[in-house]
């Protein structure tokens, strides 16, 4: 798109608006102007293109004139306005790095929340999208008590908090639970007739067709068949405590579920958590390498058609679950074309 030569009317409203914004950018924008500028940019893709073209025209002009540009943005008068609510994922990332950081103590709140994984909206760009759901971003929910649930693609979770307990139902798929400490109010995940209970703990549960799989990354959880499950008379099966480095598998296909505990090493734990978003933050990484990183985490794999693409040297700050955004930018800014091959593979090649 950018390589197509432009024919434009310099008196068109878009051109005039772009030139005005360009001039304002130079002197700095007030808070109100910023809002209007962002609004203008978002209104029509043509606006972004036009301002980009201004950018490159100006650069040429600048070079010819030999002007040395200085463009310090003016300090915003709203500098002391309250800070925005920060995207918690970044904050979480920081916390993940300090693995044993203290968990927040939570206020007791009574509420019932329901949320269901929802697929992303249809979006233009990538041709053919047989696997939109597989490209969806990983969802992270912070509950009222500060506990955090990260849901893998396709997971369904229902939350029912009461004064006595914090109960969550994992209806489908896989999720990681980072539980805020509250000894007076147990945190309980009910999954296919199995209760997994924690106090201030991080653990993952994966619900498959015939099996529930639980692993613990911090603290201890108690795994037992739900009292409500008819096949599990009270006290018939003793509680199983699961610690860091252990995995419990519960066969939910049978009438009386059996809990099997086995050891799990760091590598397995890591692999099991690959679906969780990691910040791919590299000062320098080859395209071939970062594609591998994305592919480790996602069901949809990216394939580079040409070995010469593999050696493009990039700097990246990208979440591992945003392969879609990454591929779109490769198309729009890096002269590549993306094409679906089957429902789980995207081929990237040089644009013709």
């Amino acid at each position: 798109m950018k390589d197509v030569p432009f024919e434009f009317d310099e008196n068109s409203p878009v051109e005039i608006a772009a030139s005005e914004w360009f001039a304002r950018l130079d002197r700095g924008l007030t808070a109100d102007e910023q809002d209007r500028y962002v609004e203008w940019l978002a209104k029509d893709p043509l606006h972004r293109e036009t301002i980009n073209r201004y950018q490159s025209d100006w650069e040429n002009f600048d070079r010819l004139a030999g002007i040395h540009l200085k463009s310090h943005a003016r300090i915003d008068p709203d500098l002391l306005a309250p800070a925005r609510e920060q995207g918690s994922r970044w904050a979480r990332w920081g916390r993940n790095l300090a693995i044993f950081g203290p968990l927040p103590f939570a206020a007791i709140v009574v509420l019932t929340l329901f949320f269901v994984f929802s697929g992303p909206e249809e979006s233009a760009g990538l041709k053919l999208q047989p696997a939109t759901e597989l490209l969806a971003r990983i969802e992270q929910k912070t509950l009222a008590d500060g506990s955090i649930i990260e849901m893998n693609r396709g997971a369904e979770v229902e939350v029912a908090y009461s004064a006595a307990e914090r109960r969550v139902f994992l209806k489908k798929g896989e999720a990681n639970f980072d539980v805020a400490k509250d000894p007076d109010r147990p945190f309980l995940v009910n999954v296919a007739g199995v209760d997994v209970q924690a106090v201030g703990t991080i653990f993952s549960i994966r619900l498959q067709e015939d099996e529930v799989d639980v692993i613990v990354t911090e603290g201890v959880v108690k795994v037992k068949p739900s009292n409500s499950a008819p096949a599990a008379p009270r006290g018939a099966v003793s509680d199983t405590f699961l610690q860091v480095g252990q995995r419990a598998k519960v066969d939910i296909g049978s009438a009386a579920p059996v809990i099997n505990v086995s050891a799990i090493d760091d590598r397995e734990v890591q692999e099991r958590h690959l679906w969780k978003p990691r910040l791919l933050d590299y000062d320098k990484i080859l395209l071939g390498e970062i594609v591998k990183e994305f592919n480790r985490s996602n069901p949809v794999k990216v394939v580079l058609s040409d070995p010469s693409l593999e050696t493009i040297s990039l700097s990246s700050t990208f979440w591992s679950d945003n392969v879609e955004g990454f591929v779109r930018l490769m198309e729009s800014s890096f002269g590549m074309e993306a094409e679906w091959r089957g429902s789980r593979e995207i081929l990237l090649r040089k644009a013709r």
Partner: protein
Amino acid sequence: MVMLGCAAEKERVSLDVPAGDAVKTLKEFARQTEVEIVYDLQSVNGVRTNAVSGRYDPEVALRIMVRGTPLQVDYERETGAYAVFREKS
């Protein structure tokens, strides 16, 4: 003020990135604004970006940084990620 489309989800962030080598300043921009960004090192090599300081929408801040340089900003509106690239001449 009512904002349209994805712009509504973008919020202004305090940032303070000094002028300097694009390889470093763009990274610093990403760190301070907590947005996703990708750029190829060959394109930004040797480019000096402008200083930006204040509360800005990240896209506006990025555009201020690259203004007057051969670099351009690409914003992926579906997922809110950015690329910086050099316009092919």
